[in-house]
């Protein structure tokens, strides 16, 4: 469902992604691991369409459509979701209002009528349960004054309500204690299914104990240097990224 071919991207003229190839099929969960500065978040932001990232080569197809030509909101309406590494605080916009606006934007894009108020409320109640979110968070402004854990839970909650077909989780585990991590992982796992794909970006192997991926890729210096099964994550946990850092030659051999 997501095909990334030879993706090159620059930020402020500096090349960060140097030829990424990645294919994710429906029902698959892929993990991308890598050290700081390897390009993980750049990849997430390029997929979601954030300004300031210039794609200089290559393409990204979403169900065969050229994703890179779409505005961020169109990508979202097509069924793409980005769980932000740093969810943004939006004072003055209530969480529930925001969520309803998002749901209705997607429905409008699909040519469907606005969501029925009662149906929406039922869905919200059910999904709140999933991420063990307190009802009071709905009335508060989006992410304003939320703790780190609450922000990440709110991301998963939004995802659960919007029910995208493909989700990119950008370091959703960073800054979470183990309990919050479990809640977030349970939320993601509950949404996994044969029609839905996930790209889980993380620095740490820990998250992958809870969200067990089908495939693991190592991103280093703007390239995927190694791909494997879930056991690759464990190997990285033991050996660290130093392997790639110190001996790029060996890393290339390992990737081959």
């Amino acid at each position, binding site marked *: 469902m997501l095909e990334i071919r030879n993706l090159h991207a620059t930020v402020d003229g500096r090349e960060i992604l140097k030829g990424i190839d990645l294919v994710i099929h429906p029902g698959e969960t892929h993990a991308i691991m890598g050290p700081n500065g390897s390009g993980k978040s750049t990849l997430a932001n390029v997929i*979601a*369409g*954030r*300004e300031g990232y210039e794609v200089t080569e290559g393409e990204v197809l979403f169900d065969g459509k050229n994703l890179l030509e779409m*505005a*961020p*909101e169109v*990508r*979202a*309406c097509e069924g793409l*979701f*980005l769980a*932000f590494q740093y*969810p*943004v*605080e*939006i*004072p*003055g*916009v209530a969480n529930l209002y*925001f969520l309803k*606006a*998002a749901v209705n*934007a*997607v429905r409008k*894009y699909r040519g469907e009528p606005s969501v029925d108020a009662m149906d929406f409320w039922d869905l919200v109640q059910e999904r709140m349960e999933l991420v063990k979110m307190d009802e009071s968070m709905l009335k508060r*402004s*989006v992410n304003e004054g939320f703790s780190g854990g609450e922000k990440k839970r709110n991301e998963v909650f*939004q995802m659960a309500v*919007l029910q995208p077909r493909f989700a990119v989780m950008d370091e959703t585990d960073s800054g979470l204690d183990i309990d919050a991590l479990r809640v977030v992982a349970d939320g993601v796992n509950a949404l996994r299914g044969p029609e839905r794909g996930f790209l889980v970006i993380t620095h740490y192997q820990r998250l992958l104990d809870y969200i067990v991926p089908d495939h693991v890729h190592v991103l280093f210096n703007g390239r995927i240097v190694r791909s494997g099964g879930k056991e690759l994550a464990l190997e990285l946990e033991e050996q660290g990224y130093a392997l790639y850092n110190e001996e790029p030659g060996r890393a290339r051999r390992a990737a081959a």
Partner: protein
Amino acid sequence: MSSVAPVVQNPFRQQFAAFTADRREPDAIARLRREGLDRFASLGWPTRQQEAWRLADLGALAQIDLQRPADALVDAGILPTLDLPAHRLTFVNGRFAPGLSRLRELPGQALIASLGQALLTHPERIEPHLERLPGLSQHPFAALNTAFWEDGAFVYLPRTTVAETPLHLIFHATGDDIAVYPRLLLVLEDGAQATVVVEYRGKGRYLNAPVAELQLGAGAVLHYHQVQEEASQAFHLGGVRVRQGRDSQANLHLVSFGGQLARTDLDALLDGEGASCVLNGLILAHDRQMGDYHVRVEHAQPHGSSEQLFKSVLDGQARSVFDGMIHVRPHAQKTDARQSNRNLLLSKQARANANPRLEILADDVKCGHGSTTGFLNPDALFYLRARGIPAEQARTLLVHAFANDSLNRIQLTPLRERLASSLADRLALGNIEEQ
């Protein structure tokens, strides 16, 4: 190099002679008018060399040969409503329009009437109050108003009278380069309470220079809303004087959406112990509009509190000015005075000017002020878009979030909702069609 200053004829003197020729009113009032005219003559037409008018471009207004208004009829359908029972007084071109007004039953000795009519029936209630408040002494247009006001509203609530029904005052001007000088005189005696909504509107090009005088006795409570939605070519140069007695509460909401140049000067004097004043101002301006608040809050007695929040949302080449002074007299210990000015720029050509000032002559007070100006947060914009919300809608949502901080302080629900929807329309259109 020396030059001889041209002798500037005060064009208003001639008009004044014609204006007063056929007026029959008490000598005291006629004297006030002459004093107003003399004050205007000594202040002169504002120039940009004067600090208080440095940022106001009155050139376009000075070019206009301002006319005395003719009687006009307007269709009731174009007037705003509050969607709740209200005492309604409508003024067209500064003159009372009984057919567009509706007065409901009033408690006891309370009086709500056209100022012109009340001056005939109850001069003894008006003379002690009209033009008696300090403030606006340097405001030339307030002086012109005192010289030329024809009508307006008179609200008199005796001791402990609570007007449950809001008072809705509509001032509509019909253009054709007229100058109108509406007047509001509101007297709340000790313990009286009122809710007032003043709406300034019109079509075409005109000058509206209203003056409102608000007197609050001890323990009086006023909720005052001034909604300026003048026509896009109009000039609005208004003044508000407030004097508060002991433990009185003034909640003053000022909304400025219309006009090519719209300025309100407000002087509030907290003249009794424990008086509290909340000032909530919002400007929305686009194209080449300019919105301006000049505010002076003077704490004269101890234990007073004042809170000012002034915000502006500026698009296109719009400009805003916030000039806010907090003055605390030596005697006014334990004053708690706050002032905040926040400006949101929606275009790179928009400009907000902030001039917050403190003069604190007492040594045991809490005073604070702050001012920020910035663009929409691009991260917030992307966050909304990444959830499927189109860029324009996301912008609108963020602007609303900014403005709602002001609008949400308005407790009168139908008015708050109408303003929110007017805000949305204006943001969506970029400019609003005239009625």
